[in-house]
């Protein structure tokens, strides 16, 4: 690593900028190794503690509680438990990062050394003092450090013989207990079996759909399809230019990198808010209870965020060869974009767009449920109006529509590939 001796300069390494950088980097790497293991261990222990408290409070105390003790006791407990686990056993974090606490100079890790390590850990590792040295001071003093764990040739121990395996098993059991307790209520389960008759009308529609609503439903289906088409179209217009600013390989330099980060972050936030929530926001905006316009805006916003992500990821995966070739012929930046990048992305972009259109058809039915117009709105009106037979009929239509579009989009995409 680093420059060959005496090549760039005759000075000792630590007097040169590169040498100092190197030294800092080595310390940072060592610190990061310990930090990763510790964070994983402490995080996992904290989650276990919270879940155990939660289950205890739920089943025994009949309330909700997350720690059962003051937060500082919780924090100290978690840190101590992580330290013990990391010092005396092969902890989860060590396992996940492929490391183990082992001797640095070749002798066995005796239990005495482990105790010393555990004690010194509080002084040197937790405050970070040890990392001012290279190799870290606690490694020098105790002779123990996080070494890569050689696993070749050794049969892995069964999970119930390892602390990490038992830990994960306990975590799973507690999680399931909490999940069942919180989400399943007895009365609802009883209703599941007692009230199956409520839904008979839905299924009756399968054999005798209500044909009198077909014309109205057909109209709403047309609206739904148009919603999907237009929202996709408008989203493409915005997402294509944005995608170039959201591609890491095109955005170089400090300004470019910050634009990239902000854009990707914003898109990620927008994407994690479901279109339904967007539809509600836009319904408030246009002040209407029902509006296909609000629905299309919701789909539009969500599609932009989704498409920018898909497009930009494709851009990041383009072949650099043509860019090199066209740059080498003396072409400018715009020409490189036009002749080396765009030809590579046109078909994938169209393919992603079709895929998104397919999703938008489904989403358009869903957005309708909150008043976004189209067939979904008709469906929810029937359901809440206890017209289950009509609702069943509409559902059949939705299935047919979704199938047709699904098939069409898949065929077109297969052609493009």
């Amino acid at each position: 690593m680093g420059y060959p001796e005496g090549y760039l300069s005759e000075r000792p390494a630590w007097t040169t900028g590169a040498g100092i950088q190197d030294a800092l980097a080595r310390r940072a790497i060592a610190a990061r190794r310990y930090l990763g293991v510790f964070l994983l261990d402490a995080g996992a222990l904290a989650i276990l503690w919270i879940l155990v408290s939660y289950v205890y409070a739920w089943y025994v105390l009949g309330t909700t509680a997350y720690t059962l003790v003051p937060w500082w006791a919780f924090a100290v407990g978690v840190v101590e438990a992580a330290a013990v686990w990391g010092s005396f056993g092969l902890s989860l974090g060590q396992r996940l990062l492929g490391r183990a606490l082992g001797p640095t100079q070749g002798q066995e890790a005796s239990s005495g050394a482990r105790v010393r390590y555990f004690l010194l850990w509080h002084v040197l590792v937790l405050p970070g003092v040890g990392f001012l040295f290279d190799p870290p001071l606690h490694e020098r003093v105790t002779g123990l450090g996080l070494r890569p764990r050689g696993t070749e040739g050794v049969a892995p121990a069964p999970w119930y013989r390892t602390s990490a395996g038992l830990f994960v098993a306990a975590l799973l059991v507690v999680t399931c207990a909490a999940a069942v307790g919180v989400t399943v209520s007895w009365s609802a389960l009883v209703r599941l079996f007692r009230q199956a008759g409520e839904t008979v009308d839905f299924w009756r529609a399968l054999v005798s759909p209500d044909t009198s609503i077909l014309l109205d439903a057909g109209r709403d289906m047309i609206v739904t399809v148009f919603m999907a088409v237009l929202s996709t179209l408008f989203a493409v217009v915005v997402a294509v230019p944005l995608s170039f600013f959201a591609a890491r390989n095109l955005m170089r330099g400090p300004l470019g990198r910050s634009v990239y980060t902000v854009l990707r972050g914003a898109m990620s936030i927008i994407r994690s808010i479901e279109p339904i929530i967007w539809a509600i926001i836009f319904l408030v905006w246009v002040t209407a209870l029902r509006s296909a316009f609000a629905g299309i805006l919701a789909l539009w916003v969500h599609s932009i965020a989704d498409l920018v992500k898909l497009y930009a990821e494709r851009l990041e995966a383009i072949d650099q060869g043509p860019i090199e070739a066209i740059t080498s012929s003396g072409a400018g930046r715009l020409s490189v974009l036009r002749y080396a990048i765009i030809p590579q992305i046109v078909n994938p972009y169209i393919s992603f767009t079709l895929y998104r259109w397919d999703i938008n058809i489904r989403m358009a039915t869903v957005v309708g449920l909150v008043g976004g117009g189209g067939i979904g709105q008709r469906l929810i009106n029937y359901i809440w109006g206890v017209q289950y037979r009509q609702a069943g009929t509409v559902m059949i239509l939705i299935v047919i529509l979704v199938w047709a579009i699904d098939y069409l989009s898949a065929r077109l995409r297969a052609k493009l590939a």
Partner: protein
Amino acid sequence: MVWQPMANPYLVVEHLTKVYERGQVLALRDLSFAVEKGEFLVVIGLSGSGKSTLLRCINRLIEPTSGKIWLDGVDVTRLSQARMRRVRRRIGMIFQQFNLVDRSTAIGNVLTGRLGYLPGWRALLGWFPKEDREKALANLERVGLRDKAYVRVDQLSGGQRQRVGIARALMQDPEVLLADEPVSALDPATSHSIMQYLEQMNRHDGATVIASLHFLSLARRYGTRIIALKDGQLVFDGPPNAIDNAKFKEIYGEDAEEVEVR
């Protein structure tokens, strides 16, 4: 290696050094040599010895860390990006992986060789002059691909693609042709046909060719001069027949296992 001044050098590389920031690889160390106009210079060396880096430094696809490169009396390492583009259009380049746009037609790829000569807005609209189109067809004819002009290049074979690459370089009317392992991805018979096109450009069009090659036999057959790189250093510079067995051992043999180390 000491660089002996030449009577009439065309391309001069002086103390060229390249350090890749990422991984801190020393790819070229203090490299110096000169090339005369009309030479066919072959660069040989193991993979990882810095051949690609050297060629890409010459047209500054990669920025050299230090050192100078004089092309026809101009120090290209000091040119601004805009002026570098004007120099680049006189330097054709051919690649190991062809670097064609797979989704374009053969002629579409060949035409991109003219982009350096086209005003930006025309390039953006794709309005190539009629002469350029005719020239592109003529160059495809020259490499024997006239009948594939409008076929997408992903339907062509490796040798055909490299010929498209050559036609693209021909569009630039290059004074210097850089060829980075142009035949490494091809079979022996095809390799010779590609090398013959390079030879033709060297002899008939007067282009100075700098080609990196993997096989010494090809280097001996086509080169007028050979330089050898090892770990980014110049270890040989001389006529093809000067490489004897001992030299060969020195370039390729001794530490073959060390070279792969990054």
